[in-house]
């Protein structure tokens, strides 16, 4: 009996707590959304370096902590060497870490203590750290004059060196100044799409498809040809991994942007109007997904039979081994597979521009718009507010913005670029790998975009809002295709289900992040 009394007491306390809690009002958040700035990059021209070089006393230090992941550390080693040559009184200490938590969940505490000077990683919760005043306001850095354009007389500031499509992902609300300020430097900019095995394409005379119809025809050709690689394995049109099925976003989002236009996507990503999730009101994402659905799930024999079972590594290896002609990929794919592995397989890979879908928007000349989605937009470079060597850190960042120095990054990372503008013609000329040449060519001719959003529905939500709020269902759509015993994952059911959920929960989702 006493046990039940205790249980009842506990339940009563819980109910009291619930009631007390429900009496409170959560209030609302009052941050105006950022407006994306100019979308065009400042083109590199006849520039003269005007950056004022600082001097530092003997024994000056700079500590850079970085996530030792897919981009490797060679680029930082190269920068350290060059910076120390130019600033002989400064010693840079590089601190690699494979523990992502040190840059995400634990960083807030670290920044309170005795932090390192610069942190480089993805998924840093920099918006919160900015509001807390734990990371440095970089407005002054962004205002720093780096070059002078001799033809126009224009001063090229640090801000101009940052790719336009990433600038809004580096700003956050500055409550004291009541404006958006820069708090981070976007580390990466590049693009994704469909990787192709150039060795196989050359061997079998397959041509890079320019349109969706040509892509479908190519897949049909590969599938029917019964082509085999050197090891005697059948070559499938695609290999992909269900564990990282979001790689298909690189293709589907490109089609979405081709159909909707980038301005429309920017509107979508503000997450201010739930009707963007209504496929009847805003059909573009569903249309793009439908193109993918008709290409991949509707042609089960066009995918490597282990695609659903492969993990990311196995998928990369199957592609490098020539078991498939194409693979959905991002900019870091070549780096991830490893140049040495590709050489071992005798395989040269490239990245094709995403083929145009039939109803793609056209530019003023009547050509379909060329866009490229960059999955790698979350990487950040931040400076700790309590850093002991802030001045050296700022000097390092502005030094990095010099063209010659920023080129150390692509020279060491196989097709990846800092979040800065580059002379693509020069990079293409200097590249000796197909992958790099392809990526630089795509970036040169395309408008790049990310799905970064400054909406609180993303950075404050328990489950951050995204274009696919219920999951992207690539794997399920493929597996369940044509199986009446499995739940339906057609474009209609997927997008209607998303809309039903958003329509029903929208107000609650907004309230949960403090939006009225």
């Amino acid at each position: 009996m006493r046990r039940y009394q205790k249980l009842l007491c506990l339940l009563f306390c819980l109910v009291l707590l619930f009631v007390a809690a429900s009496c409170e009002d959560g209030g609302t958040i009052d941050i105006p959304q950022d407006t994306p700035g100019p979308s065009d990059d400042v083109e590199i021209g006849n520039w003269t370096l005007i950056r004022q070089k600082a001097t530092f006393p003997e024994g000056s230090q700079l500590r850079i902590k970085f996530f030792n992941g897919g981009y490797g550390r060679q680029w930082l080693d190269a920068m350290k060497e060059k910076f120390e040559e130019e600033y002989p009184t400064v010693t840079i200490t590089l601190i690699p870490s494979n523990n992502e938590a040190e840059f995400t969940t634990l960083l807030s505490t670290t920044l309170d203590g005795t932090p390192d000077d610069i942190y480089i990683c993805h998924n840093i919760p920099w918006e919160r750290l900015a509001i807390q005043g734990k990371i440095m306001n970089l407005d002054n850095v962004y205002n720093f004059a780096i070059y002078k354009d001799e033809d126009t007389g224009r001063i090229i500031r640090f801000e101009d060196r940052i790719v336009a499509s990433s600038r809004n992902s580096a700003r956050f609300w500055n409550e004291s100044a009541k404006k958006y300020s820069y708090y981070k430097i976007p580390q990466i900019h590049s693009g994704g799409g469909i990787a192709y095995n150039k060795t196989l394409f050359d061997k079998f005379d397959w041509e890079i498809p320019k349109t969706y119809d040509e892509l479908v025809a190519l897949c049909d050709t590969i599938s029917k040809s019964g082509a085999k690689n050197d090891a005697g394995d059948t070559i499938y049109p695609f290999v992909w991994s269900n564990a990282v099925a979001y790689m298909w976003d690189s293709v589907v989002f490109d089609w979405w942007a081709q159909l909707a236009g980038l301005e429309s996507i920017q509107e979508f990503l503000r997450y201010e109007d739930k009707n963007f999730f209504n496929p009847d009101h805003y059909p573009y994402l569903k249309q793009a997904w439908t193109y993918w659905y008709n290409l991949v799930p509707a042609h089960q024999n066009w995918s490597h039979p282990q695609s659903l079972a492969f993990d990311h590594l196995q998928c990369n290896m199957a592609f490098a081994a020539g078991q498939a002609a194409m693979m959905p990929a991002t900019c870091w794919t070549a780096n991830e597979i490893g140049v040495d592995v590709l050489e071992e397989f005798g395989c040269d890979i490239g990245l094709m521009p995403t083929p145009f879908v039939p109803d793609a928007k056209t530019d003023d000349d009547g050509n379909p718009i060329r866009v490229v989605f960059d999955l790698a937009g979350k990487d950040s470079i931040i400076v700790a507010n309590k850093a002991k060597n802030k001045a050296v850190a700022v000097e390092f960042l502005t030094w990095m913005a010099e063209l010659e120095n920023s080129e150390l990054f692509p020279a060491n990372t196989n097709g990846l670029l800092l979040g800065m503008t580059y002379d693509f013609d020069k990079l293409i000329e200097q590249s000796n790998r197909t992958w790099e040449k392809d990526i630089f060519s795509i970036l040169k001719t395309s408008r790049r975009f990310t799905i970064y959003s400054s909406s609180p529905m993303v950075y404050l939500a328990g489950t951050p809002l995204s274009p696919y709020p219920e999951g992207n269902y690539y794997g399920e759509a493929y597996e369940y295709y044509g199986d009446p015993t499995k739940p339906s994952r057609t474009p209609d059911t997927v997008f209607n289900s998303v809309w039903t959920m958003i329509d029903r929960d929208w107000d609650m989702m907004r309230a949960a992040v403090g939006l009225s």
Partner: protein
Amino acid sequence: MIKKYSNAATATPCRKKYKIAYYVFVAIALAYPLIRFLIVWGYVNISAIWSSFTRYDILRDKNIFVGFLQYRLVLNKFINDEGTQKMLLNSFMYFPVTCFISLPLSILFSYFLYKKVPGGGIFRVIFYLPSILPIAVLTMAFRFAFGPDGFIDPILIRLGITPPLWFGSSTLTPIMIFFYCVWAGLGFNIVLFSGAMSRVPIEISEYSKLEGVGYTRELLQIMIPLIWPTIVTTFVLGMSSVLTVYLQPYFLMGSNSAPTYGRTISLDIFNSYSSEMQAPYLAAFGLFCTICYVPVILLVRGFMTRFFKDVAY
């Protein structure tokens, strides 16, 4: 003991000194577990409960009350979201797998070892080996055994059987994960049950042998009632796996984004958490599951303790 010393302590200064030393010793002995309990259990749980009634206000950099809002969101997901319902079902399946497959097998194998079957020592090592290897290594070894580069598929192909997608099918993958959990979980349970069985007086076993009691009857009517408290504890621990299991599906499904058919409650929370700003919703999610499930565990425990009376031996 304390009373004895406290009475005696007034007698001489030496005893008094001894009494102080005794209390210092007790305080030191208790300090670590107590502080650990207060931080790891007390602080974490109270903080999670508090957090579940709040939302993070980024401008004020603090959590503020929003009442049941997070719980309403969670409830809404449970009622309306097909993916969440599937995830709950996945999690709940660990209950029968752990309690009605793994546990009986563990008792059976422990009994074999107790009866000193030939090669029992080797089997003990085989059963226990998975428990001492890191889960990342073990899951990788298990996963790679099934697949084009493993050793199972070539055997099947030689037998003329087309190997299925062991870890790529919504039907087979959950079964493979359950199979792994049973295989890897046996060792720990066997250690517990072997310990419990070894405590049963040898006279009982000898007497039953003299009376002509067979192995099955001995196991069911003598051994199980005698080790019943251990079985109840293991059963309850097995039930709690519904709320706690996440590493096995995480590693077995290729680490990155777990497909819907392998998601569990804990894995979902683990995958979703990337910053403290998400804590309120995820805390509400976890607590809601706990509030719903803990009474079931308590009821089952209460029900099971009524089967057999505790026997002191």
